[in-house]
């Protein structure tokens, strides 16, 4: 207990060399994580990198004497919010990789200029402010018996209105999310018969769609089947994969494989023939 208090006091008034070491190591990792977040082509990697950064931030909160926030950061942010992100990434397509090629003219250039300028200005601003001394949180944390108690005292007195309003905001957000994502079915779902009749009326794809990988060696669903002329048909891949752009483009590969197969069978057949001829 006394050790805990001592640590608190320490965190509140001074920075130990241990904290400095922790800062430099974890800080580097956090920056790396942030950079990875924006540079990874796949959203799921970005999410994971971000989660890492957030966990490191939670550690920094703890180091700064914000014990409650540190815990909340891990539980709410890393736990809840990042998971939500991952869910959505799953929904949208976990393996889809974005092209990092810029399409808006001048966008990247301006982004870099603004980013650099902004960073420099912020740094200058911080450097400009005389922040060499600091008060520490010891007194504030111990006023009500601890960090959590202190926060509680503030939240339920001074910030009680804001707190209540955020409560309302959360409820609204929850309801809003449901309204946005929930689709009420306003009509009876079409039966298979109706669907086929509709297809007949529209005059397209009367027969069932071709199955994927007809000529392929394996029945992977993400490989387009090849048409008789050897070109791959996207129709053969299921719609969701198509939309996500997750068709494995195998045409060349398949053709090469085919060629290899033919060659091999040729060789074997030739060898067999040769053998036969030889046998004859």
């Amino acid at each position, binding site marked *: 207990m006394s050790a805990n208090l001592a640590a608190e006091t320490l965190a509140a008034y001074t920075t130990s060399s241990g904290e400095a070491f922790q800062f430099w190591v974890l800080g580097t990792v956090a920056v790396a994580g942030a950079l990875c977040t924006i540079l990874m082509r796949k959203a799921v990697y970005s999410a994971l990198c971000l989660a890492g950064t957030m966990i490191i931030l939670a550690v920094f909160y703890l180091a700064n004497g914000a014990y409650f926030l540190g815990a909340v950061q891990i539980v709410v942010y890393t736990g809840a919010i990042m998971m939500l992100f991952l869910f959505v990434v799953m929904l949208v397509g976990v393996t889809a990789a974005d092209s990092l090629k810029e399409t*808006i003219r001048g*966008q990247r250039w301006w*982004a870099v200029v603004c980013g650099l*300028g*902004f960073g420099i*200005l912020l740094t200058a601003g911080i450097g*400009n402010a005389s922040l060499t001394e600091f008060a520490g949180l010891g007194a504030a944390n111990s006023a009500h018996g601890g960090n959590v108690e202190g926060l509680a005292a503030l939240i339920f007195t001074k910030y009680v209105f804001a707190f209540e309003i955020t409560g309302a905001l959360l409820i609204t957000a929850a309801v809003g999310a449901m309204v946005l994502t929930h689709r009420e079915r306003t009509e009876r779902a079409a039966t298979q018969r109706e669907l086929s009749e509709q297809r007949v009326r529209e005059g397209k794809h009367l027969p069932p769609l071709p199955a994927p990988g007809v000529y392929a060696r394996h029945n992977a669903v993400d490989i387009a089947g090849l048409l008789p002329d050897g070109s791959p048909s996207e129709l053969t891949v299921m719609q969701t994969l198509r939309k996500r752009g997750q068709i494995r483009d195998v045409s060349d590969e398949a053709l090469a494989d085919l060629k290899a197969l033919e060659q091999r069978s040729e060789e074997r057949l030739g060898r067999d023939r040769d053998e036969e001829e030889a046998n004859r």
Partner: protein
Amino acid sequence: MENLIALLIGAPLLGAAVLLLGGRRLDKAGHWIGTLLAAVSFVIGLALFADMLGRSADDRALYQRLYTWIPVEGFQADIAFQLDQLSMTFVLLISGVGTLIHVYSIGYMEHDERRRRFFGYLNLFVAAMLLLVLADNYLLLYFGWEGVGLASYLLIGFWQHKPSAATAAKKAFLVNRVGDMGLSIAIMIMFTTFGTFAFGPVLGATGETSEGKLTAIGLMLLLAACGKSAQVPLQSWLGDAMEGPTPVSALIHAATMVTAGVYLIVRSADIFNAAPDAQLVVVVVGAVTLLFGAIVGCAKDDIKKALAGSTMSQIGYMILAAGLGPIGYVFAIMHLVTHGFFKAGLFLGAGSVMHGMNDEVDMRKYGGLRKYMPVTFVTFGLGYLAIIGFPGLSGFFSKDKIIEAAFAKGGTEGWILGSVTLLGAAITAYYMTRVMLMTFFGEKRWQPDAEGHEPHPHESPRSMTLPMILLAFGSVFAGGLFSIGDRFVKWLEPVTSFEHGHPPISAGAITSATVAVMVVGVGIAYLQYGRRPVPVVAPRGSLLTRAARRDLLQDDFNHAVFVRGGTHLTRSLVYVDHTLVDGVVNGTAASVGGLSGRLRKLQNGYARSYAVSMFGGTAVLIAATLLMRAV
């Protein structure tokens, strides 16, 4: 007694209000109401006159103050009246002649469906004119001055359905407004100089300011007088004003309103006395107009326009006399009064002739009318004799005095002015004889008009002849009555001041010369129009005649310079306003539009590029904050 002064104005004003607001139900009685109220004014005037005669010469002026009109710090304009001998003279002339002409109009306007309104306007005029002469300050005078202008506008344009009448009315008002501008500037100068514009303080303090200021006031007053009294260069409206009904021409454009300019100058005598330069200009204007009007009068075939030229010329006499200073003021007024009688009589006579001739005004289509209209002939004839200065009649006395005064001006000036007035007298005799001969003598020359109606000349009804007869009496006797024992001079002397002029030649010689030139004028006219038949279609005539027929090209000049120039100016200004002033604004709008069209392309719809600008903006804000703190 002084409380009656307001009633003088009030009676006709009431008449105007009742008649103009009363509506159709007064159509039957309207003319009687109008005439009655004008007569009431005349009776009050007579009562005041009697009262005034009962007091000593220095104590005759009456004052009545009703209330403060415009109460503003340092600017006190009162509704207040002053009735002195000068005003009295005018009151009697206006209400007297005015009443007679009301009576005359009952007959003359009998067949006009808007007769009630006509009488309303006439009453309005009488009220405004009385206000003009009774005002005790220049601002109130200005009120009356514009009031008579309005009445004149309404009456000239009474037959509004005729475009010519409407145009003439507008022209009269506009030209008068130019004169009014002079009057208002004069009042402004007075206000800044004297701090007031009441007659008493202003005229009493003329010695305390510079001659330059007084000259400026005098010239501005003269401009006003030129406008109202149709003096050169603002004379052009008077001829056109004859578009109005003839009683109007008689009352407003012969006897009363046009003489307001003379009143103004005589009333402001102290200012002019102290500003010799202004006086000189007055004299020159008078002299020029007197010849100008006379020459125009010689050339016109329209009987009313000929008389209008004559009016202009006679008022030129008055203005000239007024410009001569104390030796002339009284005679200016005297001529004004006698002229009021005989010119009103002449116009009424002309109206009577037109009445009998289906409103024909071209004298070349008259001739020999004396047999058909004996009363008109006699009264017109007496007026004619009066105006040409036939010895013993009114005009002789008043005009002779002016000619004497002109000579008495002294030096070269005196000789020039004297000769001009004499020449004027000769021309007057010439053109009036011409009118007389063409109208009443010779063969009958009238023809059926376009619709085949042959005129049947006939004498006018009693209501018309009676005023003519009364005015004829005035034309014959007024001059003598005034001159015997210098009555008129003594009457007006306390107000206008008077000095006996001393002409370089004897008065007798001047009188003889006057009579002689009159005889010459009559003689020439007789040779031209009495001995020979008058052609129905006017001959081409000499260059001067043709110019005179066109008012000596004054109208053409005005038209070319002011009307055409003004039209061009306004048109080009409309263009400028549209293209330049508005164009600058619209151009700004267009260039802003163009700029935003270009800026619009930044709006590419990509949220990310908006985010860049937001981010950049934030960076700029931070930079600005840092800079501010650094500074």
